[in-house]
């Protein structure tokens, strides 16, 4: 036996398999058949089932029930029944439950890691060292939020029963990201895991039992997209959280439109990985390994587009190719495996198809010398693949591959790097490599992405918000910002339905007496306000604005889609506003308050005439408007995010950034105050807006143009288009260059704009036909407005020498 001598020649690592006997025993104990988990009980596995397989061996692991509408209904009922008692528990009591879950997860850490590996195909190193520790961390962190909820989120109540649909790439971790904040907030949950990877969720259900979580707080229904659709469409849920593809995200956005459900979507990405010539190239090479060869590249935030400074590109690619040679693709349970199996044959085919197409598109493909062995081996394995010379105009650069494939291109200047980085419909994450912090931070600020890692990549922590810009979705998971996705202002439960407004008169001349006090001798034509200029409506139509008795006051321009288009263009051009400091914006808003106050009587008279409000009431509205202006001038330089230290020698900034261009449909009530209550927080946070005032009472808002002009509000920051609210809102919802939409109209209008927003997946904040008291400081102003006006960008910055 001269085995040792042979090994001394080759110095191979040899196999180092993780034992899966205990996990196989667990599957056997369940006879490899699983049902759902509803109201604290596992249902018998009956009816339609689907097979769950180990992608590394293609062997069946278990059969699992496919959830029907009835199963979903039963689960939602159980969650609804549990909601009352669970949400009424004290924060401390809920914290104890979450803490117990965290403890149980740690106790079963290796069991969960091995189960995840055989179910998903990812390497045991990752489930053991990344997934499961992050799962435990998430429950610990949110045990803290449960304890602190009332103090940290005064005036908030749990959103209610939550439907949660999670993907197959990080099954247990995504469960934790969804379930922990929901439970901490006081919500109950119906979770649907991905049909490829339901096993760790089932194990988690057992852990819930073991940890004594009250029945019905966590429910689990297995199944495919049909089960997911049944859950999303169920009227008994008040919140839907989804992680998965942008395509399905769109479907869910349309499906839930007008339902009043809160929605958060964490979708696809094509995240840039920018390497400056000042980078530590070897560090960046390892960064690529962690970016695109982590989890077989099946990572929504994978750094899949390398954007490399031209002068160092060849050297960087050389180092990268060498590093690729030493990656190990193989049995996921082997402790020396870097890249395990992709989740299913169909996924492998999709990767292969995109790679073949990419090669045809003219990019240079490179794979390690051993790639053929991998491709010809049984099981779902795919070798690490590098494309260089990728053109931004090709599918390789634009489409998500969700596999171990890196598309690389070069840039000349820092500005061009950011341009290339932002040349994408997505905006989930970005990784930026430079030893020069000026260079790195400049790019971090300018890149449009929800998560930015400087000199690092794919780092996660429960305290740091994660989520996308643009078509990568909206809402955050983790941190304070993540908790808000599962809470709603308490007063909303008692909100009243908005009374039906008068139909807008036709945009034609009316035979009517002028309202009293209106002098017709010198016509003051009300116009749209676009790009700092008064503009006639494109349509050439005007509609009558009448007093409560139906008497004509004057005509208002009847804006149409082209006016919206022009307004968006003007708002885009006003980007300087977003780059100004909070202090500078505050100065402008204080000036605005001063100038508005000078004209209190004039605005009050306008309001009285339009709405019939008493002189005192009208004056009160103008005074409140002035106060609101001062309120947001005050906020302009104070809503500035948070700094966190999620790891040693690591600073993570949570920066609230503007959406840049927001569309606003103001309500009819309080036509001046409500209009300003929406426009002001938006612009205070650095957005530029296209606002449509109350259709029936538009004049006070239109008069504002003079105040805006005299207050140094730059052209294009506030654009005012009057007309039919719902027509204009629909155009805004469909406009891909509008980042967010606030709609305060009818329930039907809400359904329309939410459905139409699915195009670019802009977040919609809609009243859904409910009214709010704009004079009330709790309802009419506050953090909710600022939160809606911004999106959190998390910037991770390691340091050390």
């Amino acid at each position, binding site marked *: 036996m001269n*085995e*040792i001598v042979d090994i001394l020649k080759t*110095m191979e*690592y040899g196999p180092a398999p993780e034992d899966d006997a205990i996990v196989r025993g667990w599957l056997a104990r369940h006879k490899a058949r699983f049902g759902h988990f509803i109201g604290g009980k596992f249902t018998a596995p009956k009816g339609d089932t689907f097979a769950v397989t180990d992608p590394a061996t293609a062997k069946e692991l278990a059969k699992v029930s496919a959830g029907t509408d009835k199963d979903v209904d039963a689960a939602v009922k159980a969650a609804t029944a549990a909601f009352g008692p669970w949400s009424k528990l004290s924060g401390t009591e809920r914290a104890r439950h979450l803490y117990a879950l965290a403890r149980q997860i740690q106790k079963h850490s290796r069991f969960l890691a091995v189960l995840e590996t055989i179910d998903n195909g990812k390497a045991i190193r990752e489930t053991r060292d990344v997934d499961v520790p992050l799962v435990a961390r998430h429950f610990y962190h949110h045990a803290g939020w449960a304890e602190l909820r009332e103090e940290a989120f005064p005036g908030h109540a749990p959103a209610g029963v939550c439907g949660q649909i999670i993907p197959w790439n990080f099954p247990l971790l995504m469960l934790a990201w969804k379930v922990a904040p929901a439970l901490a907030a006081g919500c109950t949950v119906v979770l649907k895991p991905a049909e490829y990877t339901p096993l760790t969720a089932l194990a988690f259900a057992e852990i819930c039992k073991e940890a004594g979580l009250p029945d019905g707080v966590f429910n689990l229904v297995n199944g495919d997209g049909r089960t997911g659709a049944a859950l999303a469409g169920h009227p008994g849920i008040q919140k839907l959280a989804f992680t998965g593809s942008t395509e399905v995200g769109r479907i869910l956005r349309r499906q839930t439109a007008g339902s009043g459900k809160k929605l958060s979507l964490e979708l696809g990405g094509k995240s840039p990985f920018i390497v400056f010539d000042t980078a530590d190239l*070897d560090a960046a090479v390892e960064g690529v390994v962690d970016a695109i060869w982590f989890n077989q590249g099946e990572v929504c935030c994978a750094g899949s587009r390398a954007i490399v400074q031209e002068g160092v590109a060849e050297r960087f690619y050389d180092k990268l190719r060498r590093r690729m040679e030493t990656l190990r693709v193989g*049995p996921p349970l082997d402790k*020396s495996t*870097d890249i395990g199996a992709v989740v299913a044959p169909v996924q492998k085919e999709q990767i292969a198809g995109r790679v073949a197409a990419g090669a045809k598109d003219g990019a240079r493909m490179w794979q390690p010398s051993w790639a053929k062995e991998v491709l010809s081996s049984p099981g779902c394995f795919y070798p690490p693949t590098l494309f260089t010379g990728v053109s931004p105009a090709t599918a390789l650069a634009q489409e998500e591959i969700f596999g171990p494939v890196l598309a690389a291109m070069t840039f000349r200047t820092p500005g061009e790097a950011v341009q290339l980085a932002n040349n994408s419909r997505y905006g989930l994450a970005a990784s930026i490599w430079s030893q020069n912090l000026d260079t790195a931070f400049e790019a971090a600020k300018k890149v449009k992405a929800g998560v930015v890692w400087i000199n690092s990549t794919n780092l996660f922590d429960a305290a740091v918000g994660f989520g996308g810009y643009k078509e990568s979705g909206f809402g955050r998971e983790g941190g304070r910002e993540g908790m808000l996705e599962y809470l709603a202002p308490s007063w909303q439960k008692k909100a009243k339905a908005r009374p039906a407004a008068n139909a807008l008169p036709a945009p034609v001349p009316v035979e009517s007496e002028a309202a009293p006090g209106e002098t017709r001798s010198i016509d003051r034509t009300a116009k749209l306000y676009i790009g700092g200029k008064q503009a006639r409506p494109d349509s050439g139509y005007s509609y009558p604005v009448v007093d409560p008795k139906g008497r004509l006051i004057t005509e208002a321009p009847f804006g149409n889609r082209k006016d919206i288009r022009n307004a968006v263009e003007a708002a885009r051009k006003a980007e300087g506003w977003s780059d100004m400091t909070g202090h500078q914006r505050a100065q402008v808003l204080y000036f605005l308050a001063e100038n508005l106050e000078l004209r209190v009587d004039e605005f009050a008279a306008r309001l009285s005439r339009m709405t019939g409000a008493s002189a005192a009431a009208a004056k009160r509205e103008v005074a409140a408007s002035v106060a609101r202006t001062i309120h947001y001038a005050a906020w302009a330089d104070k809503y500035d995010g948070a700094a966190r230290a999620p790891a040693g020698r690591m600073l993570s900034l949570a920066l609230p950034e503007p959406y840049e261009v927001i569309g606003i449909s103001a309500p009819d009530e309080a036509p001046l105050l409500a209009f300003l209550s929406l426009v002001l927080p938006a612009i205070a946070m650095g957005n530029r807006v296209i606002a449509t005032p109350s259709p029936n009472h538009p004049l006070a808002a239109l008069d504002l143009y003079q105040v805006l002009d005299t207050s140094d509000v730059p052209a294009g920051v506030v654009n005012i288009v009057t007309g039919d609210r719902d027509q204009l809102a629909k155009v805004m919802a469909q406009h891909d260059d509008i980042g967010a939409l606030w709609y305060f109209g009818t329930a039907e209008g809400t359904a329309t704009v939410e459905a139409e927003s699915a195009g670019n997946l802009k977040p919609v904040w809609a009243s859904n036909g409910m009214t709010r008291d704009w004079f009330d400081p709790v309802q009419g102003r506050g953090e909710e407005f600022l939160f809606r006006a911004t999106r959190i960008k998390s910037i991770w910055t390691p340091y050390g*020498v």
Partner: protein
Amino acid sequence: MNARTETREAAGTNLIAMPKQGPARNEGTALKPEWFETVDVNLSAADRRVATLSARRSVKKQWQAAWLVKAIECIDLTTLAGDDTPGRVERLCAKARHPLRDDLVAALGLTGRRLTTGAVCVYPNMVATAVKALDGSGVPVASVATGFPAGLTPLRTRLEEIRMAVADGAAEIDIVIARAQVLTGDWPALYDEVRQMREACGEAHMKAILATGDLKTLTNVYRASMVAMMAGADFIKTSTGMEGVNATLPVSLVMIRALRDYLDYSGQVVGFKPAGGIRTAKDALAWLILIKEELGRDWLEPELFRFGASGLLADIERQLEHFVTGRYSSHDRHGMA
């Protein structure tokens, strides 16, 4: 799947194109600051690489036994203490000739294979004793020199020390660099001194000790590594064993990457020696994995890789006995150095 077959490794495919005739000596180059002045090493990324590396690779069972045998072959068995005597050095040399108990050697199937440590490393005054004690064993004697460990004696005496150790039969000289030259960025001075040391070594191979614990930053470590190689070091070595912090994996990673870059630029091969604080078989495996991953199979030979260690061998012996018998071993079952 490449991980299962490892055929490319069995076939000897290297990560880095190594000159075919095997490692010749590093002749050095002119001082070329452009090869290192723009390099700035990111500490967190280096830490992360080494932290995950040990978790990414695992050697078990007979593979682990073989790797530990390899580690023995790469040890510079060292005594560098003020109380060294000829008797102590002779004992060390005997252990270097015969590092593992015969029954273990037999059980590992290594009977008849030459199994010694890579070298013995002593102070200059002990070179003659060691050379005599190792006569016929093929184990080279390495001597520290140049005012070890601080290197703060006049250059003339430091050079003379090298010549005397070589004259006494040292085949390898472990020099120390002047840390001040790194801390002040005086690269020409560092280059010139190391060059002269290399000339003084003659046929003896020169290992340049950077004393990385004194250099503090990884960027200093990278730059000092480059200058030492340009000046003709055959090996670069982390530490004297006397600094506050000795061999660490992040420092080793940076030195290895410098060595790789130097090979790319100059075509010349340089070896690597971590020293100080490497005491357990587990440590040894971590370094061997680092070498294999960052440099490739070819560097896992005593010609290009050494551990500077004194206590490491004892722990490896115990681990190998555990592999053979299945029982945990004790120190007194193995002959001491």
